[in-house]
């Protein structure tokens, strides 16, 4: 899957889970810019897994801070 497609789908998931309005920047921080709390962070991980059909390592996934880093992190799983 192309990185651009991953990024688009990541932003779609983020928008749904965090109920954000308007454009989401690539470098947006889930907590600082998008207001994710701890429960929403876990929900995001689950939603990414469902969207991409992957099983991520939760501890590492929760350390991912930005939209761009999430796309890279997911791309790593898709490559495997």
């Amino acid at each position, binding site marked *: 899957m192309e990185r651009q497609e991953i990024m688009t789908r990541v932003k779609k998931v983020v928008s749904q889970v*965090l*109920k*954000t309005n308007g454009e989401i920047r690539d470098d947006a*921080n889930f*907590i*600082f*810019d*998008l*207001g994710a*709390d*701890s429960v929403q962070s876990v929900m995001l991980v689950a939603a990414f897994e469902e969207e991409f059909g992957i099983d991520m390592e939760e501890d590492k996934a929760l350390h991912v*801070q930005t939209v761009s880093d999430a796309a890279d992190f997911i791309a790593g799983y898709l490559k495997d």
Partner: protein
Amino acid sequence: MTEPNKSPRKILDQIFYPQSIAVVGATRVPGTVPYDIVLNILNTDFQGIVYPVSPKEKFIAGVKAFRYVLDIPDPVDLAVIVFPSSVAHMALEQCGQKGIKSVVIISAGFKEVGEEGLQRERRIKEIADKYGIALIGPNCLGVINTDPAVKLNASFARKMPEEGSIGFLSQSGALCTAVLDYARAKHIGFSKFVSFGNKADINEIDLLNYLRDDPKTKVILVYLEEISDGRALMETARNIIRTSGKPVLAIKSGRTAEGASAAASHTGSLAGSDEVVEAAFRQAGILRSENIEHMFNEAIALAYQPLPRGNRVAIITNAGGPGVLTTDATVREGLKLAAFSEETTELFKKSLPKTANIKNPVDVIGDARADRYRIAISQAIHDPGVDGVFVILTPQSMTDIDSIAREVCRVSETKEKPLYASFMGEADVAAGIDILQRNKIPHYILPESMAKAFAAAYRFASYKEERVSEHRETGRLDAAGARALLDRAVQAGRKVLTEFDAVKVLELYGLPVLRNGLAASREEAGRIADRIGYPVVMKIMSDEIIHKFDVQGVVLNVQSRKGAMDAYDQMLSNAARLRPDAHIDGVLVTPMLSGGEELILGIKRDPSFGPVILFGLGGIFVELYRDVTFCVAPVDPAKAGDMVRGIKAAGILTGARGRPLRDTRAVEACIVSLSRLAVDCPQISELDINPLIVLNEKEGCFVADAKIMLQTG
């Protein structure tokens, strides 16, 4: 602290007296820290503007929210960051860009959680330094200022405390909430209340200095878990007491003896970290409290009432038993029962019933009502031989408790002398106690607590009057020579000095040592022994042999030249057999003293407080009774006197039960000299003089054995 061009007072004023606050990372979820802090600021009628900052919310608790702190159109004095630790640095960076100079980081997840948190804490400190931000926290409860001019509760404590004159500083946030709850029930008010958490930037010293100059604060309380700079703490406390007269009370938790077991000397093993804290606090005039209740018992006495000018107490009671209990507690705390003047006694005779006991403790009898209490208290408090009054009440059927409480408050209004009360019981006396507490009369359920609090107030009053005594020169001093000897030993990689060298260092610092000589041959041993005079003591010298007895390297009571020569051969042969690897420097020959008392003096280097001096009875007493006193160096002659008189067995030196008076002045001079050595020579890690033999008055004292351990690495 940051921003060297701005005075610390000015910077902290912005934290305690902000005109505008941004709560960065606020949410709309009730029961969470980010929400409760916004609500607390609003609910306490804060006299400024609040700006919630939230990436998602448009408003919080009815107040317009901003996405970023940079979006706030007006200047902001104080930011309270409640974002999780992983992004706190981003919030702080934006605060810096916004020009906010004061920040409180409430969030946890920094150095207290390990390496990753430590890195985060370093990062926020770097950002704070870059922008000149004064930072409280992270990992704290927040700050409270009850001053009506600001009414600030930027914390997640449940309720704003009452306004009062006690300033409270705490390293623990959780303890703060318990303290606030405890205080509220007793109507104890606060001026400032600060939880400073991990103290990444602003620490207890900065805050103590701020409270020193705070006109709303009369008494300062501090709870510490670790002391990073003990000497600075001591100096700050001394300065507060000297310049503002405000008492400082402290709880230092963690009274464990870790580290002491690894010590190589007697002094090291006796001076555990808690003993050093105890000694240092006492020296600095800090009143150390065992627990929160103890601390507030003393704090209210100091905050509400004048300091006692002496330790003579009058007790007014309506029951004999409690009067006796109070008397016992009073005497146990080192206080005295006041002896009333003839005039007061006459007044008591005229105004109290015949059945009343008009001697101290004054028993106004069980049927006493408010008028009788008033007369007794007023007459006692005006007696020139009385320094303070304890009022005891037990609830009997005819006791008008509330009226008596109000009379106590009325008499106390003059604030001429301290007046404390103990209304004993619980349910029946509750309303009376409430009257006392609301009117700032120190109240204690137990007379023992009352006596303890008075004793603490008296101790503080006495400390305030103390003056540092002048330094007395003690003997010849060649500090440069001593330092050179120690430097050479350190450079040679030695961990311990031989007794010969250790004694030399002490001699160069003016301590009295015995004539001695180091023999490198059988013949030389004989010659030195002849010169010194018999009997002599001979000891093997090697910096590789610390315990000389283990290699049969000590011979006592050598009576002749031949004996000295034979002993020399014997000791060398023993050492060769038992420690063939050890290099032997020779055999030390010294006179054998008889009589005198064996004492111990020592130095230990504490990680927080630096060099500490120990004094006690030597020989077996050190091991058996641990009867020792400590002082942080330097020690002046007055403090040296306190150390000598401070051991339980001081009477052994001062003529108890017909024993000879020993030369304690000579011992005090040794303590002063040793403390100078400790301060001047960081090469010394630990030192024991054991024994120091003190002779009769005016005959002096002598170092009979000494051990010096050197700093390595």
